């Protein structure tokens, strides 16, 4: 949700910037878009499609997530000249690093998870096992590699939508915002299209 909000805010900022500069806003020109669809497929079946996600073994899910993120990194490299893509790649690399170092899932501590679900539900999830059908795995901070890259950030307690996110997520959101907002600027000499 926070990542989608970054895209929407970026489009809004790009439209305002374009209006202010009296030029039209254009959607960023990206190449090899098909690669994103291919890369997303394993995640779609593993995390989003209810009919399949409960039947896929965790080992396949973690492998699929890693392969998917590698393909997304390739997409970033192929579109490296587009504005903000280097930030997308950086955020993705940070998430990939912590996920790869912790068995193919994003670690989340029981303390952080306790803000997202009631304690009685949390107690049913043994440490080291997946936290729902998402990308997260419940791990104590002492057992987590690159703990500073894990899902450890939370919005204020009175915020209506509670979500745990990582440093990589923040960088990805910034990159997505930049990618959209930069389209309202005058074109630079180096073309963003490949």
């Amino acid at each position: 949700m926070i990542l989608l909000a970054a895209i929407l805010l970026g489009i809004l900022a790009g439209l305002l910037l374009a209006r202010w500069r009296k030029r039209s806003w254009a959607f960023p020109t990206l190449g090899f878009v098909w690669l994103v669809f291919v890369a997303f497929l394993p995640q779609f079946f593993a995390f989003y499609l209810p009919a399949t996600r409960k039947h896929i073994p965790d080992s396949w899910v973690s492998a699929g997530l890693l392969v998917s993120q590698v393909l997304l990194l390739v997409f970033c490299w192929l579109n490296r000249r587009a504005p903000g893509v280097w930030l997308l790649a950086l955020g993705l690399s940070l998430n990939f690093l912590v996920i790869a170092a912790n068995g193919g899932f994003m670690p989340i501590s029981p303390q952080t998870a306790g803000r997202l679900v009631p304690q009685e539900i949390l107690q049913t999830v043994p440490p080291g096992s997946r936290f729902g059908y998402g990308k997260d795995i419940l791990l104590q901070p002492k057992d987590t590699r690159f703990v500073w890259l894990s899902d450890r950030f939370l919005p204020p307690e009175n915020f209506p939508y509670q979500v745990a996110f990582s440093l990589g997520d923040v960088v990805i959101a910034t990159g997505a915002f930049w990618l959209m907002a930069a389209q309202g600027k005058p074109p630079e000499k180096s073309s963003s299209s490949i």
Partner: protein
Amino acid sequence: MKTKLANLFLFTQKINRQHVQVALALLAVVMFVLGAGAPDSGGLGGR
């Protein structure tokens, strides 16, 4: 009814290749951030 159908036909004619490309690119960006990011809102979803 005829007018509505005519309007619908005119609207679909306006959807050109560029619109489809923009829609696909937007979908790709959405998929990218969903695939690259890993925020968790605690959807234990009956697991």
